[in-house]
């Protein structure tokens, strides 16, 4: 199971070498998540309308290793954009993937770019 986690490492925008087009902006729901696939990876994508920001992270919740985060509710904690896992409501920052419940595990995040109505996610591989 832990093998699965190794598949997901955070990518900083400046380290992204591969920008993958995953759809058009209107393929994604507003203020909620949807999932995309890139090779063996499942990536959750969120669009926050109030700040017009996009976020991407692993779809795998590290708590019980299930592919569910794209189906979680979004929101913010003290201004930090976050997602709550639909299984046990563990919450993670969408800015840096850190765990907002004070537990040890965290998630990988990926940069998102919007160009001409298309959504791109940056990968390092």
């Amino acid at each position, binding site marked *: 199971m832990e093998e699965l986690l190794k598949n997901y490492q955070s990518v900083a925008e400046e380290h992204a070498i591969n920008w993958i087009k995953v759809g058009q902006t209107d393929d994604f729901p*507003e203020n909620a998540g949807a999932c995309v696939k890139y090779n063996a990876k499942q990536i959750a994508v969120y669009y926050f309308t109030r700040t017009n920001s996009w976020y991407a992270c692993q779809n795998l919740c590290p708590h019980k290793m299930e592919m569910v985060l794209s189906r979680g509710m979004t*929101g913010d904690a003290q201004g930090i954009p976050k997602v*709550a896992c639909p299984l046990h409501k563990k919450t993670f920052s969408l800015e840096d993937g850190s765990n907002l419940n004070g537990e040890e595990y965290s998630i990988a995040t990926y940069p998102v770019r919007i160009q001409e109505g298309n959504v791109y996610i940056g990968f390092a591989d």
Partner: protein
Amino acid sequence: MKKVIVIGNGMVGYKFCEKLAAHPLRDQFEVVVFGEEFRPAYDRVHLSEYFTLDSADKLLLASRDWYAENNITLRTGEMITSIETETKRVFTHKHDYFEYDYLILATGSAPFVPSIKGVDKPGVFVYRTIEDLDAIKDYADKLKQEGKFKASVLGGGLLGLEAANAAKELGLQTDVIEFAPRLMPRQLDKAASDMLQSKIESLGMKIHLGKNSKEIMGEAGIEKIDFTDETSLQTDMLIISAGIRPRDELAVKCGLRTGERGGVYVNNKMETSDPAIYAIGEVALYNNGIYGLVAPGYEMAAVAVDQIAGGEKLMSPSIDMSTQLKLVGTEVASFGDPFIENDEVTAIAYENKQRGVYKRINITKDGSKLLGGIMVGDSSDYNTLFQLYINAMKLPENPEDLILGSRGGESKSALGSVLDLPDTAQICSCEAVSKGTICDSITSGACCTFSDVVKSTKASSSCGGCKPMVTDLVTATLKSMGQEVKETICEHFDYSRQEMYDLVKLHSIMDFDEALDRHGKGHGCEMCKPVLASIFASIYMETANRQAPIQDSNDRFLANIQRNGTYSVVPRVPGGEITPDKLMVLGQVAKKYDLYTKITGGQRIDLFGAQLHELPMIWKELIDAGFESGHAYGKSLRTVKSCVGSTWCRYGLHDSVSFAIRIEERYKGLRSPHKLKGGVSGCIRECAEARGKDFGVIAVEGGWNLFVCGNGGATPKHAIMLAEKLDDETCIKYLDRFLVYYIRTAAPLQRTAPWLDKLEGGIDYLKKVVVEDSLGIAEELEAEMEELVNQYACEWKEAIEDPQMMKRFKPFVNSEETDDSLVFVPMRDQKMPRPW
């Protein structure tokens, strides 16, 4: 570093460790604790709950990790066999020895076993440790297999009655034998004992008073007990709970001063006759007494810790033996001197045999001071009376108001406000926390809520009996500081659910963004979004499809997410009635999509293991066969369970199935602060378990009795009667009013039972609102419900008919693939998720 050895890891021994661990000079001590039992210290006060808990660990006062984290060496299963005072050493049964600078005797007590002939026969037990309870349970199981069900408890004191309750919980027919002419002779007078006896006997137990046991008879095991008055009692088991004896063997052996009837002599510093040795808890003989209650034991532990750390804390000169508890389901309390009778004292007593309540207070002749009292059947006044007594406060003009309540006019607490108590008033006697400490923790700014206060002062963290008073103090103190105490939804909305409900309605707010713009801040979160979704649903009857992103994750996909991220599907089966044809459709759909199938507690069928993209296909097939969403995923009406009723049942009075279907059809899709369940039973045998539901209807001669605010789950509660002998229409009318009133006023995720608990005035007030229409809103409530009922739509059907909504169920935006990461394992001819 000073070496401290604690002998005994019971409740008081543990309290010593806890107090020392928190002491500022903690680092000057090296602590080793010896416990003879194999478990770390556990809660003996709640021992009888062991049978209902799934694990003994839940009774532990602290885990082994706690001792390790606090640098305390815990040696359980190890017995100290001797103390050598000259060399300051203790020896274990393994012949090891350990040196000490301070030795703490917290060896507690052992059950007193009277020397009755035959007391060593199989089937005779004591009641003290978890091992005792295990042995009792094993023997009871064996008896039951042999068709024997008779148990007796020797001892009608506090612990004896606890033991009797435990035996009853094991399914045994239980008798209690007491030597004294009354129950709980140290706490109750004759009238109180009589009241308690009739309450206990109404539960099927028998009480035998004034019985002196002569001999225990039986061949292979106990069969009967003979008494000195030539009578006898058949019994298959005997639990002895006839008092305690201090475990002072070690002290006697090493020459410490002990009492004639046992116990290690201590002064008010808890020092024994050897100044390096302290004794605390039930082994300590203080002021010529042994105190079998937790509170004095805890105080002793605190004194001993303070003393070895060089402090000057002394034990109170007189020990308060006041106690309040629930015995065999009956509230019992006794405080101060419960029996005092002389020329200077007047006793006022109140007895109500119909309600099973007895109260007595002893006051000074001039009516100025309270000296003690007794309560059976209703101890709700205990906290107030105890404070008046312990602080020697002045009594109201008519002291009888203290137990009768003031008659006529506004009912008011005899204390006036909790803030009127002196700062020294002890609010939590288990943890010795005063009113001053609680109030200071708030006024200093360290605490702002009840839970802050519990965390910081420990008040109310032990038995919880003072919780109402601590809550009142917190609220009153905050109020006195000009702070409003309010439960807001979350950081994004500074309003309670009820206030948001009113705001949305008043300003006709139509969606979440608008609510956030006008009354909130930020993006919202997983707390406030579902609350607002529920409010929109309750006001506009909108389904979960209109604002899908703010729905809780299950509502967003109209199904229940399960362990591996797949979903379960529950179609509505109103009243649990289903035709064979429809049943076959469920079977066919389950088979086609390879779904694990199980029957739910609410008389429907749950189909598990559906993948996100399969949900619309499954719904389509179900809808075509005439099914609708069962809303099993929502905080909404689930099911109205029914028994088969008068159409088939030879006992049934009315047609419960038809009425259950009518009710379920009426309220289906209704969203509420928490899930709602209902039940309809065709007679008082109550096979639909309607009183375990948020609303329950039970057929009686002349109509339906309506019960509200019950639930099963973690804190089971029986629903309470709201109205009786109603016809169908009136019953529905009251239900409409009740449900809308609840939906409007409850807190988020508050089910009906805790809502009623919080509702000022309780069930009587609710009756006034719903039945007598005291607020004049009945018509409005009914009209609102009517509107909601008329706007019902099946959300599954809505979802599959709209291509835009269908996008939700596509697993990947950029691929037509389905999720291939799912793994199932086989079990009993079906499939299961692989375990975590």
